């Protein structure tokens, strides 16, 4: 089959921009920013893209999710010929690449190791991504508003947040979870959009902070390991904003005054 003359030839850049839509669910970042795209090559048969990960033992379910998402976005490009996506140097490369080539789907790829699907796994990390984005936005607000106490975040509405990248990121993640995007919607909410009352707001923020620290820490660790494993790959990585990594610098320990009654154990 010959190429459709009406379609302009795609460039490597087009391919990478399409792959921007593929997110590492654990790190909540595009695989392009993480340096996970190893190569983009146009062949006589079509397009061949190779992916790489920080270790051979990265969780195979996430590896598969990213590779199959990559194939999906590339298959949607105006491109004649076949799309080949391969994951290099992983302990499950053979299984995953065979499954991708056959479009076997998750269960077809992992057979007895798969039970139903990866939807819940993906959902868990979408919820964590929201929690972390919420903490970033609220902590940024606490820093910029010295008059606020930590528990005051319970009253913060979407419309109160500054129009910055932290808010935009939060709004995107709320949209993913199907939470309200209205200016009057409370920001400090659980995974279902239920707000935390003022009395437990400081604790809810603290828990959200541990989630955010975990994700940020993993993102830095994975970038470092990728650069160690594939020397030179650091130049393919977009730096993760240090601002979000150390956002607590001016945060005061505001919750001290909040305690008046003895604590009970956490239910």
């Amino acid at each position, binding site marked *: 089959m010959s190429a459709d003359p009406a379609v302009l030839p795609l460039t490597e850049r087009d391919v990478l921009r399409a792959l921007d839509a593929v997110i590492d669910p*654990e790190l909540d970042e595009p695989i392009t920013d993480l340096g996970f795209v190893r190569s983009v090559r146009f062949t006589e048969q079509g397009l061949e893209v190779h992916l790489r990960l*920080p*270790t*051979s*033992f*990265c*969780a*195979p*379910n996430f590896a*598969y999710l990213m590779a199959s998402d990559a194939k999906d976005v590339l298959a949607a490009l105006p491109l004649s010929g076949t799309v080949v996506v391969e994951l290099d140097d992983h*302990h499950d490369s053979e299984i995953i690449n065979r499954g991708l080539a056959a479009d076997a789907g*998750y269960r077809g790829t992992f057979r007895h*190791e*798969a*039970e*139903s*699907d*990866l939807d*819940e*796994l993906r959902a868990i990390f979408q919820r964590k991504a929201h929690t972390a984005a919420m903490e970033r936005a609220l902590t940024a607000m606490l820093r910029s508003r010295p008059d606020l106490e*930590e528990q005051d975040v319970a009253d913060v509405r979407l419309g109160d947040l500054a129009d910055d990248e932290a808010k935009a990121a939060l709004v995107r993640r709320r949209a993913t979870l199907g939470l309200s995007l209205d200016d009057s919607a409370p920001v400090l909410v659980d995974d279902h959009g239920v707000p935390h*009352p003022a*009395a*437990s707001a*400081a*604790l809810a923020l*603290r*828990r959200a*902070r*541990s*989630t955010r*620290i*975990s994700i*940020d*820490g*993993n993102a830095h*660790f994975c970038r*470092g*390991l990728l650069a*160690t*494993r594939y020397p030179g790959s650091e130049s393919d990585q977009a730096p993760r904003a240090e601002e979000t*990594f*150390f956002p*607590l*610098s*001016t*945060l*005061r*320990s505001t*919750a*001290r005054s909040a*305690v*008046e*009654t*003895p*604590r*009970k*154990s*956490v*239910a």
Partner: protein
Amino acid sequence: MYSQDGESFFIVDAHVALWDARPENQRNIHGKQFIDCFYDYHANLSPESQKWSYEEYLYQGGERLMKDLFTDGYVDHAIFQPAKLGEFYHNGFGQTEEAWALTQANPDKLTYNHNFDPRLGEAGLDQLRADAERFDLKGVKLYTAEWNGDSRGWKLDDPWAYRYFELCQELGIRNIHVHKGPTIRPLDRDAFDVADVDHAATDFTDLNFVVEHVGLPRLEDFCWIATQEPNVHGGLAVAMPFIHTRPRYFAQIIGELIYWIGEDRIQFSSDYALWTPRWLIEAFVNFQIPEDMTEYAPITMDQKRKILGLNAAKMYDIPVPAELQLPNADETATGSRQPERADLAAV
């Protein structure tokens, strides 16, 4: 013993290994991939002056281990936590006979923990009985991502795992070190999920569950479980070297741990031979939470003493010189530790 500026520290390295990953012991490509992954951890997180060559890294032997831990490394007592990895290495990854011989030759310096695999069923239970007697086991190291035939992992709340924990109770094996690995069946779930630790810790309250890597990459889930279960502890394997490459991230990890689970349940380890203890101990004694991170209290010398050795010594009944002992913190058994830093009363 480590001393600096008149301050002394009793050191227990709670997670060390004597491994053999040389090509002749590698069973297949995964044996190479596994040690390559470890070496990348080592190379990525070590100070330049502490980096080993790849060849050195494949195998150290007992003499080198004794030098790195006890001659150069300030360690008073170390605990072997061997991973078997029988599908990757002919004679296993952790070298049982060599480590046990070393332990017998240095009983005041070394404790040998062994491992079990609940997928081995009744035969594995018999083996655990024999191992407990032979090694006088006080603890076991469980790697939940161990491959076994078609299976690439298991969970602590599997029915067969419970049979093994019951036997641990009977045999006096009280300390269960858990290393959450990245592949588990079915793959539908988060392989690093620590929820099974929660179930097992709730059902076996007389066993201690030491979660290695403090649950990383799921620090938040670990903190939340550990704050509710008084028998869940955090091992600092893999987290320690961040003190060099990412000191502010390390500060956040330590700050979160002290906040959520308290100073009495955190254990230092070098994770030897992933890293060596000397530089980690020196760095930790000199470490402080940055002043601008006001959400965390500064870490005290006594908290460092507990983390560097006293907590693990208590768990393993390792004698500590009287002048270096410390009482437990007067803290709640559950709930976060620094009540002035968040209001838990309303939850």
